[in-house]
């Protein structure tokens, strides 16, 4: 299977420079951290996304993000791409992110669209978790 140049670049940058690309974890018990984990090992991909937020006006802003992904190259690139989109966004803005934005940014082929769906689901869950703690 041939990958788009963008997927390969994103994947390689992420594994070669994990800290800069926000690979890691926050303590999930912290009140300002929301954690989302979607997928299953048997299906070949699991993504864990954590957001660290702070209140701003009548909403909350994502100050930092950490993630870990088990999955194919496109799944890893998709999570990394999403993470980049999130920092500085309000929760409302983050909720509005659609998988198609990741598909377009990485030029994912149709067979890999589920990777972007996984990424979209993970941010939704992370926000849900964060909101339940407030």
């Amino acid at each position: 299977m041939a990958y788009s140049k963008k997927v390969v670049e994103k994947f390689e940058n992420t594994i070669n420079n994990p800290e800069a690309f926000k690979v890691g974890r926050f303590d999930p018990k912290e009140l300002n951290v929301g954690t989302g984990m979607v997928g299953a090992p048997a299906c070949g991909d699991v993504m864990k996304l954590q957001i660290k937020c702070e209140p701003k006006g009548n909403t909350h802003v994502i100050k930092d993000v950490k993630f870990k992904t088990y999955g194919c190259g496109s799944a890893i690139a998709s999570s990394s791409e999403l993470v980049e989109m999130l920092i500085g966004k309000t929760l409302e803005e983050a909720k509005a992110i659609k998988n198609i934005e990741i598909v377009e940014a990485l030029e994912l082929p149709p067979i890999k669209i589920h990777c972007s769906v996984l990424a979209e689901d993970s941010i939704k869950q992370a926000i849900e978790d964060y909101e339940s703690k407030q």
Partner: protein
Amino acid sequence: MSTQSTIYLDYASTTPVDPRVASKMMEFLTPDGEFGNPASRSHRFGWKADEAVEEARSHVSGLVNCDPREIVWTSGATEADNLAIKGVARFYKSKGNHIITSKIEHKAVLDPCRQLEREGFEVTYLDPNEKGVITPEVIKSAIQENTILVSIMHINNELGTVNDIEKIGKITRDNGILFHVDAAQSTGKINIDLKNLNVDLMSFSAHKTYGPKGIGALYVRRKPRVRLEALIHGGGHERGMRSGTLATHQIVGMGEAFRIANVEMESDCEKVSEYHEQFLKKVQEIDHVYINGDLKNKVPNILNVSFNFVEGESLIMGLKDIAVSSGSACTSASLEPSYVLRALGRKDELAHSSIRFSFGRFTNDDDVNNTLEILSNVVHRLRELSPLWEMHLDGIDLDTVEWKLH
């Protein structure tokens, strides 16, 4: 083989054509070569081409110890498998309609069997044991009154495990059942002695043994005689079993490749065994690595390894300058993980994590050493990125987690 920057460790998928084979093939194409149609009986061009085809036939029969007249040229092992399975089933359908095969066969065997099911045949797909072997015992117990054919591969293409075709052949012969063996992975790797095996049909491929793609052969036993219904009609070539003008250069290539395999099998195997040992030792130094298949009963040119907590396709992407295969779903169009590994009872996640390394005649020390170095580095990096590895380090049993499917 480091003539290019990419290291090739996918010999079980295909091999390069041996330069000696390629130069021989070149003699049968151009106006100054022997380009004739081997079926032309009326002139020298035809006679010369026919001679070359028959010499190639004897090289193929020489490698597997059978009569040259028992070799039928096909377009490859896939066609040979199709001809054997569909050809026998359709010819002998008045005798019975039951076929036995296994779940770890190549698609070139499984798909013809599926087709026969649509035509009213009944097919039993046997499970391998957890080591990837189809035992003679399970075959014996699957035999029915109406069984006409057993089709079992010699060497499994994903695992390298070897089935005992000698014992299986005794069982099928005792029961008056025909026995077909897909030997696409065997030639040049393991000795085959058809005179002393109760095998009735055997499929071969040239391009797994340093010959060209697009050519293969089917061994069809003469004594006791095996009959087939042809798949391709038109001209009655190959004693009516496979019509079509013979591809002289391809056939000569396969013959030369098999001749060389006969001479060099021992030295090829010796070299590959050393790389296998070296590879195995180093790979097992990585934590949570599983060898798929039976180390005590497999060919050394194939090594299938699962790297737990790392997905196979991302590993392949990380090994970007190394050509290998994966059992991961993501490398297949179907998004299903390797059906062979699943048939062994491996958990899906281990099937997703598997990589097949296969070595060959042109593999060198640098290929192996560089691969091992890059491999442990990439596995380490991907585990740092893996939530499963993190959970494992936290002492969480992944089997007890309720996963949120998406």
